[in-house]
């Protein structure tokens, strides 16, 4: 530990906090996300206290829900508590396939008019709060909830239109594979996710991932398109990175080549 003993206040910025600051349980300031999505987020994970919104895709049903589940998956697997508010159509099977621990996932399918109170109460105790945004949310309520999340060290993930989020993710395109005219079945989907935001995340990014991936193919074995750099460990159900296309610029992720930066500008 001698190497860490740096004298000077600058080195203590991340180690010392004022007594009024939120209690960082366990000291983990960033909740992990699956490796494929780290490139989209400024802290390579879900920073506690931040608001990461997932906008409804264009067209509507092209992978937004799966993206939300994929964001939760790694944090939930690592032991965080999650809550999903206002999603009565929640597909628990898909959540389990992506690796979410269902016993640490609370659902509030119909919060009704008490939506803001419920979300605020959950922010107090749950690490990641996903909420479908009701039609009419005033800017002041949204700001208050985001401030509460910042103060309590929770991650707020609004699903729907939400102004002022730190990062806004959106599914731009989703293309299913495996289903032909009258044969086959849905196997995997190539999803293009774009991210824009404030501060460190101001630069728009876009990546392509498999969401859901094809590692779930068990019933009918078939030749998987060979992808260089795919790890040997089974990552059943996790989003899979699409193989690098051409020689485009690469993002600086832990696994170079795993993600394709479509538009580096």
């Amino acid at each position: 530990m001698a190497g860490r003993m740096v004298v000077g206040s600058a080195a203590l910025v991340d180690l010392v906090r004022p007594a009024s600051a939120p209690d960082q349980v366990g000291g983990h300031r960033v909740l992990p996300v699956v490796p494929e999505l780290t490139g989209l987020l400024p802290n390579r994970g879900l920073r506690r206290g931040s608001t990461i919104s997932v906008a409804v895709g264009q067209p509507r049903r092209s992978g937004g829900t799966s993206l939300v589940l994929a964001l939760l998956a790694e944090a939930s697997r690592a032991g965080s508590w999650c809550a999903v508010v206002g999603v009565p159509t929640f597909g628990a099977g898909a959540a389990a396939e992506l690796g979410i621990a269902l016993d640490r996932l609370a659902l509030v399918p119909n919060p009704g008019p008490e939506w803001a109170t419920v979300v605020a109460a959950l922010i107090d105790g749950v690490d990641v709060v996903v909420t479908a945004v009701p039609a009419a949310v005033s800017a002041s309520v949204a700001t208050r909830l985001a401030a509460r999340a910042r103060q309590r060290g929770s991650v707020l993930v609004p699903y729907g239109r939400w102004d002022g989020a730190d990062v806004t993710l959106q599914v731009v395109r989703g293309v299913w594979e495996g289903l032909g005219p009258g044969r086959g079945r849905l196997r995997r989907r190539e999803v293009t996710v774009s991210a824009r935001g404030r501060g460190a995340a101001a630069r728009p990014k876009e990546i392509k991932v498999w969401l859901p991936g094809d590692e779930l193919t068990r019933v009918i074995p078939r030749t998987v398109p060979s992808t260089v750099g795919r790890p040997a460990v089974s990552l059943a159900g996790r989003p899979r990175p699409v193989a690098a296309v051409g020689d485009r610029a690469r993002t600086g992720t832990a696994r170079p080549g795993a993600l394709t930066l479509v538009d580096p500008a």
Partner: protein
Amino acid sequence: MTGSPVRTLLLWCPDWPVLAAEIVDGVPATGPVAVLHANRVVACSERARAEGVRRGLRKREAQSRCPQLTVVEYDPGRDARAFEPVVAAVEELVAGVEVVRPGACAVAARGPSRYLGGEEAAAERIIEHVAQSCLVESQVGVADGVFAAGLAARAGRVVAPGGTPEFLAGLPVEALARPALADLLRRLGVRTLGDFAALPAGDVLARFGFDGALAHRLAGGRDHRPLAVRQPPADLTVTAEYDEPVDRVDAAAFAARALAEQLHDRLAGHGLACTRLGIEAVTAHGQELHRVWRHDGLLTAAAIADRVRWQLDGWLSGSNGRAGARPARPTAGIIRLRLVPDGVIAQAGLQSGLWGETGEERERAHRALSRVQGILGPEAVVTAVLGGGRSPSDQVRLVPWGDERLPTRPGPPPSGEPAAGRGGGAPPWPGRLPPPAPAVVLSSPLTATVHDAAGEPVVVSARLAVSAAPARLTVGTARPVEIVGWAGPWPVDERWWAPAEARRRARFQVSLADGTALLLAVEAGQWLVEAIYD
């Protein structure tokens, strides 16, 4: 061996399995009844015995001797359950009861005989008390040692102190309840327990082994085994009576809080915790409300208080807390509140993480979720449990937060992870959808229409022939969307043996031109959108 056998008083209920069947299942024991185990009679009623039914007979043989015989399957659990009130009745008179087997219990005779004025008087008193409180006929025997007392009870005798060996000497060797040994002894010419006891102990051990040696000791009236006295179960129920009927929810909640603390203290005092809690409320007009709450962890004082409040809240205010079978609003205030702990387990202590973190996060989340339950009602916060089933909505059961997480249908979760707590016995659910699972499962399916390229509606025949390739999908009133890929029909014919629950469907996966993928089903000619692969 030093010391003499304990003077024992044994209460024996004749034909106990038959009586238990009457008490629990309502089979009249006055008629001819036989209890069978593995096709052999293990017990029969007096009437059946008079007709010639004996222990060990085959079912067919017993029925041929007594055609009107009622046959009951042997159930040791039923026997034990029915015997519990009898033991409780005996415990009201004497302390330290050992249940020898369902139908027989033993006590040390010294205390009751001195307290109740002699062994005969004690025996009469116990028989009378059991008959009055449980309506069960019984016999009592007193002798030295449990074995001899059991035989004395069959004869209804009080064997004088020290007279046990003489009493046993006259009995046949079958009384040892070791048929193989008795048979062997008979063929060797040893017919009574007295003859057997007269054999040298060393030779008996050498010839018949340890069990034979034990039987030899019993036959000689040297039964030194002390009574294994049963510990009466602690009464953990807490009750509160209110002189002033409670008719406001906040007052009831306040009362519940005090009661919950009391119950929790009592449980903690015994080193116990409960996982199920029955809450009973009685109104001034005699209406009763009883509900059992389940909990996946251990109920703390605050959790108990919350549950009492929710239940009373729903009842007293008639609020929209719970739908379904909610009883009508009470007509008067509550005068009595009872908390009955159920599913009591030894509290081993809920271990927090070594550095306190895991427990703390869990606590924090539980607090927040309980708070939301307080705002919206207990059933508004749920957690999903995966079970078996063929459609995505069947596989998921939503359990109110804090309840036991049990799936509706047993089965492996669709992700293929090994089902927790179940071995290879999980049903395979053929016909369930292959992964990936849809991320949006509609609780009520949307109606849709599917047309082929020529604009004709696509129909699926009873033999699963699709009339034409689906080309366009219209959901509700939305604009038609072109279908670019489809697969099916995948038939599902569920519960055809129960006409009320039968469902026959053919399922399709379709992907649309706009990138959406759907799970469709055709049921009775109607196309439905069941789930969306969002």
